[in-house]
């Protein structure tokens, strides 16, 4: 599939494009399911903020082993300008309502690459954060989060409740199997609006223009070094 910029330069063409779960969020879901399988966690709730298609993504999470889903419906122009700050406020509010002990998010989304949601959610809740987790263990009522940093691994201890963001090597997400896909259809999925949660999702940014990357200019093959030097001088690359 080829990404095309809309003629009015307000964004990229997304009509008819299939939605799927952000890969880092898939890792987050997998980790939550593993925590439940290890009997560390009791219940898993998946949250997705977006248009109607978000429900398909939630069903995938349910089929992977999540217990119930919450769809925060945001569509149209508000969805186009939805920022990590909005999502963080929604997650913080839901975490309080649901009395969650851990929030696991993917470290970043692969379209905007913002990498802000975990950090801002932790700040809003005033919870500790373990970002870019490549391994999570629960020891003595605390979480040990191992992070891949330059030059090695860093282990940090965080008290619960906490926010964790999943890095690539945390786990390899499972495929949802047919029996579980069928079971997932019967699992509860609640729909709420940001308004219900008291979160204002009005745009805080304005997209001025979305442009195609500049096209690369064709190269030329030169016969010898002399010609290369002439070309370099013409281009002002050498004196």
């Amino acid at each position, binding site marked *: 599939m080829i990404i095309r910029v809309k003629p009015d330069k307000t964004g990229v063409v997304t009509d008819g494009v299939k939605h799927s779960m952000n890969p880092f969020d898939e890792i987050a879901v997998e980790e939550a399911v593993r925590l439940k399988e290890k009997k560390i966690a009791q219940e898993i709730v998946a*949250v997705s903020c977006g248009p109607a298609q978000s429900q398909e993504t939630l069903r995938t999470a349910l089929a992977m082993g999540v217990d119930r889903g919450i769809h925060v419906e945001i569509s149209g122009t508000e969805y186009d300008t939805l920022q990590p700050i909005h999502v963080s406020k929604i997650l913080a509010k839901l975490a309080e309502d649901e009395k969650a002990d851990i929030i696991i998010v993917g470290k970043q989304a692969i379209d905007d690459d913002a990498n802000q949601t975990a950090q801002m959610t932790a700040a809003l809740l005033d919870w500790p954060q373990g970002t870019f987790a490549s391994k999570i263990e629960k020891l003595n009522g605390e979480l040990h989060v191992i992070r891949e940093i330059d030059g090695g691994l860093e282990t940090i201890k965080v008290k619960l409740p906490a926010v964790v963001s999943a890095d690539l090597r945390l786990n390899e997400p499972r495929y*949802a199997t047919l029996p579980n896909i069928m079971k997932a259809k019967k699992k509860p999925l609640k729909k709420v609006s940001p308004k219900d949660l008291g979160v204002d999702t009005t745009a805080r940014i304005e997209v001025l223009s979305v442009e195609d990357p500049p096209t690369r200019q064709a190269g030329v093959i030169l016969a010898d070094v002399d010609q290369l030097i002439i070309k370099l001088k013409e281009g002002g690359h050498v004196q």
Partner: protein
Amino acid sequence: MLRQILIHTVARRTYAVNFIQNGAVRGICHSQWCRSSDIELTSIRYPGVQRGSYAQLSEKHVQHFRSILPSERVVTDADDVAAYNVDWLRMVRGASQIVLKPKTTEEISAILKYCNAENLAVCPQGGNTGLVGGSVPVFDEVVISTSLMNSIVSLDELSGVLVCQAGCILENLDSYVSQYGLMMPLDLGAKGTCQIGGNVSTNAGGIRLIRYGSLQGSVLGVEAVKADGEVIDCLSSLKKDNTGYHLKHLFIGSEGTLGIVTKVAIQCPPSPKAVNVAFLGLNTFDDVLQTFKEAKRGLGEILSSCEMMDLLALDAATSNLKLQRPIGEFPFYMLIETSGSNGTHDEEKLTNFLESSMASGIVRDGTVASEPSRIKSMWKLREGITEGLLHDGYVYKYDISLPHSSFYAIIPELKTRLPAEKVGRICGYGHVGDGNLHLNVTTRKFDAAVLKMIEPFVFEWTSKLKGSVSAEHGIGFKKTQYIHFSKSQSSLNLMANIKKLMDPKGILNPYKVLPAQH
């Protein structure tokens, strides 16, 4: 105990993440394995094959080629030529000293005219992804690579007819036509490397044949150059054209022995708006057949692929290429793909089919995907088998067509026939929808004794069941002695006469397709 975990999942629009296709994978293979000079020369491994009485390449010839092509497109450096001498499976190695890289039909015509006059044998080569040793020289044939013949001539958006040069890479063509809402009518594991000219010359099949038919149907026209340099223009782009003999069929599937394909006109169907893939686990081969039958009935016109693989075949991809197996261990797996114009409609059909197959117990477990990234990783399991098998060592590869009822019976038969301590893996996978089984045996190193136990046994067995000894891979160099198992003497005689007529000196891809006595 934690009461609850809240996870945030974002439904993101899936933009194409172009995974590295076979093109790049091949690069890795070359660097990680032995140097090409470690592979035994074909002339040594197959002492029964005699070099024809062709001229030896001389400095005079090289000079003349340099007058036809700019010198950078006449490759004579031994290291550069080496890659063109070895096939992708690394089972045969020729000893050519020269590779020519024409860009136009006229250049190919001039090259062939000269070679014919000088009695120099030639070996046409596309992406060199063939599996029967047809794309590399046997002795010292002049290699004519079509790699630089990669321009697209035209695309008619309304009729979907694409006209392009022979050296266009299949995947590049597919990306190109996808901008116009079209797709290539064939798809195969080697798409990132193989060229359309090679696909046409070998009448390549692949994973969508069940839906879009063979190239004999979708190729509307061909331009080819005969051995004497004459350009045969049958580049019609008409869907219907019953005027005279259908000469294009002489070039489709004749593996470069009657002419070199230089341009093709190919009918591209509209690309589907919705694609779903199900990966299923089954207990018996009878269940596989039953599922195929149900899939045809339940999915009807949206069924676009129906593939099977046994546990050991899948294991070649999962263990050797470190891919994740999506479901538990089962003796058989199937990959079923639907392509259609209405996602909701397709999903409903597929769900009904899967629910009833699960309920009746013929399918034991499975998973399903409709997102491009997941679909790609499921296909990678099926398409990665060929490459995964290479990691075992030496691969004895058979590609046979059989009636569905006896499709898989050869595998248990071979398992009792071959000594377990000598053989690494005996496995089967393939296009169950088309009755086409890829039978593969691997050993750590080439073992002539094992080969003797497999051949001609497999061919005799196939022939007895009225199957074909080569369903889609062709005859190439490897199977010339076995063509008679699937073709009558009278047809072979006619083939030999056609060859004599079109290439009297036999310079085009010698030692391939037809048995030596002809």
